[in-house]
């Protein structure tokens, strides 16, 4: 194993003209946050897999602040890391940093969230779930549930946040693509917060009443908020089809009890593992695909017993 790494190291050196010694290579991992339901298991999986691969990982947490992240990217370059794994929180802001990394001969990949197309020439690969794709899958699922027509509300995450933009954009575009008869009544921002979703849902239920024939929430936490508001207003009356994202444990319970129609599972463990494995391949001098997705599973009542919740 060690031998293989050493030999492939030579070729990697030749390939990228990177400055490096024969010691363990250091990968700079700029993650979204370190205390977060999804990010924490992803970070842990990435570190664990890196140990197995004999890679050194320097984890820097942006704590959900883009500016911190762009600065950390510069730090990674200055420290002459052998590779950079970036969890982008903005589709644009990191591009100059990635360009500098490329100029310095440091290969970069993206984990979890995509960036705009302009970033493509500066990265080797983008691994992980695609938030845009998730939005599209949610649109498909909700269309199935509603037989392609009716009116829905969208409970979105934080305004301006990359995940929100992707998940709402994917949903809206997919409906357009399907030429769907589903009409969006309103989109509100509830900041991925259950309480905010609860408060906003109460008002939306009051405002639209029976016109709400379906709900798309940008994550399961906010879907939960809508369910609670619905129960307050209507007691035991069955909920309209609700589609969430993330595949949290309590969302699985809601799907079993019929309160939710579906959620989309993306595994943080797979997310973390795939990124570091891809980086290891790059450092070994192998070619990697520009897009390496992790499986996204739409979970409904049919398959809820066969799928593991994400967290």
């Amino acid at each position, binding site marked *: 194993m060690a031998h293989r790494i050493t030999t492939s190291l030579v070729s990697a050196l030749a390939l990228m003209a990177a400055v490096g010694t024969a010691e363990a290579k250091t990968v700079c991992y700029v993650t979204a946050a370190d205390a977060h*339901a999804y990010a924490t298991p992803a970070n842990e999986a990435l570190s664990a897999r890196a140990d197995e691969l004999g890679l050194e990982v320097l984890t820097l947490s942006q704590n959900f602040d883009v500016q911190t992240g762009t600065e950390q990217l510069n730090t990674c370059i200055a420290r002459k890391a052998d590779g950079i794994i970036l969890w982008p929180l903005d589709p644009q802001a990191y591009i100059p940093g990635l360009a500098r990394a490329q100029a310095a001969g440091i290969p970069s990949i993206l984990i979890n969230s995509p960036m705009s197309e302009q970033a493509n020439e500066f990265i080797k690969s983008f691994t992980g779930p695609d938030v845009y794709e998730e939005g599209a899958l949610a649109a498909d699922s909700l269309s199935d549930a509603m037989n392609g027509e009716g009116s829905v509300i969208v409970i979105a995450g934080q*305004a301006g946040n990359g995940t929100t933009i992707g998940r709402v954009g994917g949903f809206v575009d997919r409906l357009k693509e399907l030429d769907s008869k589903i009409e969006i009544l309103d989109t509100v921002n509830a900041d991925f917060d*259950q309480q905010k979703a609860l408060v906003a849902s109460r008002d939306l239920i009051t*405002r639209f009443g029976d016109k709400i024939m379906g709900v798309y929430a940008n994550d399961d936490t906010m879907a939960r908020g809508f369910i609670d508001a619905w129960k*307050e207003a209507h007691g035991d009356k069955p909920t309209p089809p609700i589609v969430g994202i993330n595949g949290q444990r309590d969302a699985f319970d809601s799907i079993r009890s019929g309160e939710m129609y579906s959620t989309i599972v993306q595994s943080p463990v797979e997310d973390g593992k795939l990124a570091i494995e891809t980086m290891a391949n790059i450092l070994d001098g192998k070619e990697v695909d520009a897009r390496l997705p992790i499986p996204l599973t739409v979970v409904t009542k049919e398959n809820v017993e066969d799928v593991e919740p994400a967290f």
Partner: protein
Amino acid sequence: MSSASEPAQGTGSRFQRNSAMLELLSKAGLGLAILVVILYGALSSPVFFTTGNMVNILTSMAIVGIVVVGMTFVLVVGGLADLSVPATIACGAILSLALQPSIGAVPAFALAIALAGFCGLISGLLVGYVGINPIIATLGVGTIVLGIVQAAVGGVIVYGTNPASADFVKSRVFGIPTIVLIFLVVTLVGHFVLGRTTWGRWTFATGSNANAAKASAVPVRAVKAGAFVITGLCAGLSGGLLGLTLQSARPLVGTGYEFSAITAVVVGGVSIMGGFGSVPRAIVGLIFVSVLTNVMVLEGVRTPTQGFVLGLLIAVAVAADVALRRRGVA
């Protein structure tokens, strides 16, 4: 060190002299504004005047309302603001759920509130006894507490394990949600303490002129510290209820509540210079903000735009209040 109230002394004395007439006017102004919003809501949206919507407004008010009661004490005592509220709310929410399996729902709830109160005590000691500016003290304590809370739970969402406690919080008495009743009780107790007890008198005395209060044997330091303990307890209670309502809690669950509470208190006409205000005033401010937010959502105003309206509201309300008082004095 009289900390925050020091630069405010020049203007502070104005508030003591305000006549009953003026108070009536500034109170009526807000009442009028609420009426206008209600009227607009009723005309523009057929669902505004339904019982369901009214209960919604009340329920949405309850969680932040409990914090508002505590925050009123901080402002009246001349303590500027308590910025550690997000941390103490998180403390209340996470502990009241996380401790359920080991010690039971009720003790967990009580312990969560007590610990939040303890965080308030630390801020209070720093402000009252060491003389640190409240903004810095509560910012520092809040950062530390939130860090510890995050370290304690890692990245995990804490889920509730006691359905009975959730049912209790969600239950209704005569159609009014329990959580609203708790909020009303806290408001009444807060009003009683601030308006009718010696502690309340001390709070006003400390807020309007700390040196004079000290001279007349008011335990100024303890009264200042006490305001932060009260806010800590209120935020802990609010966080506990939030946790039980949602049956899940994350460290960032309390984000933004400090500003919502300050907004309500300030819009209600409680002076940030200290020495003037009351719990009912703050609650009226909260009612205005809540009704306005409700109307905005019913009207489909985009979420980021609501911030604009709210910011403008704070500025106009306080500027009008200041202008009104100044004219009264002149």
